[in-house]
């Protein structure tokens, strides 16, 4: 994992609408974007960034790339991701909502074979406050500091960061894993990354109903994470089975009408309780819980 200011970033789909909207913001934030790729736009310049037709062509000109941020429309994400992995790039961030899950299966088979870190899709990407913006996080919500945020959501991550920032609690890094059923990296992977990250002193895990990733994360935290973790869970008031865009385990639970109690708020709260992870019942409660954890760590 290296999203540091000295890493080299390529934006795939720089000439797409989302590219022209977010690339200037990322550049202004100081993100080290060294190249863009948009087939057919080779030779152009977007927000001061040279554009190439192919990833390998960009590498020939600008040198090695650490991270590719993929901003293309959802049905083009598979091809862009495979192209980036064929060029031996080790970190991919997929932003688009609506990537078909079977495309993700293909991406992840290749990512596992090549040990590539994939963030997203349906994700706001990664922000290292004060240094690097790789995605859609609104800069004004963040403050440099020592709390890592890992989330399945976009806007809710901004909301949580904003509460911490207003309380004067800065963040070391924030990542949106993506709201889809099949996403590239898991809570566990990012818990491990933040556990090893020197700047991070405490971790906020932002979960939601559906799926079983919070349950698996809670077990992993109990086993492998020494830094304090505080959780917030959204969606407990939703009528059962209400699809929310973040479709989670809705399909799995529907199979044969299996009434398995996975993905409900109760199953998640129980898992966090067993792992002794404090859970905030609203975003505005997080600053206090995080501050308590930080105080404990620092003494």
């Amino acid at each position: 994992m290296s999203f540091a200011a000295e890493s080299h970033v390529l934006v795939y789909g720089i000439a797409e609408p989302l590219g022209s909207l977010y690339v200037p913001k990322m550049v202004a934030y100081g993100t080290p974007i060294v190249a863009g790729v948009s087939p057919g736009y080779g030779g152009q310049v977007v927000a001061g960034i040279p554009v190439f037709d192919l990833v390998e062509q960009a590498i020939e000109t600008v040198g090695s790339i650490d991270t590719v941020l993929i901003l293309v429309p959802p049905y083009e994400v598979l091809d862009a991701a495979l192209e980036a992995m064929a060029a031996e790039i080790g970190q991919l961030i997929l932003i688009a909502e609506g990537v078909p899950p079977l495309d993700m299966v293909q991406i992840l088979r290749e990512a596992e074979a090549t040990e590539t870190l994939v963030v997203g899709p349906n994700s706001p990407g990664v922000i290292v406050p004060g240094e690097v913006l790789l995605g859609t996080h609104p800069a004004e919500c963040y403050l440099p500091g020592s709390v890592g945020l890992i989330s399945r959501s976009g806007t809710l991550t901004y909301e949580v960061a904003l509460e911490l920032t207003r309380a004067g609690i800065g963040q070391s890094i924030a990542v949106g894993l993506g709201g889809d059923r099949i996403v590239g990296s898991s809570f566990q992977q990012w818990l491990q990354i933040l556990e090893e990250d020197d700047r991070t002193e405490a971790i906020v895990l932002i979960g939601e109903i559906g799926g079983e990733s919070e349950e698996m994360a809670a077990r992993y935290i109990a086993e492998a994470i020494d830094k304090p973790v505080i959780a917030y869970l959204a969606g407990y008031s939703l009528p059962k089975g209400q699809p929310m865009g973040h479709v989670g385990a809705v399909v799995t639970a529907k199979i044969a009408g299996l009434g398995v109690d996975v993905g409900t708020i109760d199953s998640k709260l129980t898992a966090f309780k067993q792992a002794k992870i404090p859970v905030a019942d609203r975003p505005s409660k997080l600053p206090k819980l995080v501050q308590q954890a930080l105080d404990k760590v620092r003494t």
Partner: protein
Amino acid sequence: MDLLEYQAKELFNQVGIPVLPSQRIDRPTDLKGLRIPFPVVLKSQVYTGARGKVGGVRFVENTIDAIAAAQAIFHLPILGKYPKVLLAEAKYNADREFYLAVTLDNATRRPVLLGSQYGGVDVESHLDQMRQVVVDQTFSPFYARRLALMMGLQGKLISSVSAVIEKMYRLLVERDLDLVEINPLAVNVNEELMALDGKITVNDAALGRQPALTALVAAIPNPTLTYMPNCGVHLVELEGNIGVLCSGAGLTMSTLDLLHKAKGRPANFVDLGGDYRHCCPPNVLQERVKQGLDLITQTKGLKVIMVNMLGGATSCLQTAEAIAAFLKWQPANRTIPPLVVRLVGSEWAAAQSLLAAMEIPVYESMDEAIAQTIGLASTAVKVQPGQSKSSLMLASA
């Protein structure tokens, strides 16, 4: 999005999964032109299960009985829904009933094959007999044979059942499906197979590249569509008196939770989506705000509307302008309930000034906005009884 049984069976038939001769019945008189010999089974085509227990499946022996039974089924609500069509199907003498499914596994992030020798109504009481094979690399028929063996099959059933699983898998991949389920897969005394009931869930996000599926499902409105491939604005109706307009699924859930926690009752909500929808980039957000408010205000009995917008490339002022424009264009005789607006981002002060002139309070804090909303909603308004809970949609501009 779920397909109806008869649609699933059309797809089964296309890929060579054995299904019985059947005929779609749009009205009882269609049974006069029945091309399947009696006895025949009539099945209500609804998106919910358990129709058999409430009378949604009937066996008939002749045309007169069939028409009567069809009339009854067309007028029989199943979990509140009336069928638009029935399926008339030949009878089959099952000796045993298996369960088969292919779907995606969230944990391994791979397709997974599921199977049990205890299918039909027994599947839930024999969950311990359900076997699972994760398709970790490129699919090949041996994955299907592995499942067949784990299910305890022997002899020629290994090949015949795994051939059905293989076809289910190819259907899943070719049509971008979330689920292909056969329950029961009937086995007769000669060990021949027949898919007696089937369920297919389409992946909504992939519908845009599956024109044949889009055409198939266009006929019959389907309430289970969760993702709008065309980025239409989607209203979800609940039962309360607070309208909610939010940006992004996470923030929407959190807003509903906080309202609920404060004893508020949301009447409905519109999630305008996050920042990374290609079909609706941030520059059309203003139009979408107007569409969302228009949908929300069609629900009767609203006491207040809470708008909670965060992130995105749109400034607070732009969002405020969209709200102002919505209110300005209302017909004079239409009453819009009071709005509570929470905004975060650039040009906040200007947004506040604009909306203050229309007596709409603007907050930066979510908690404060919630509190104000709850205050306005506190005089309870009775919701119209029998109000439909179905979804309304507007295509995006």
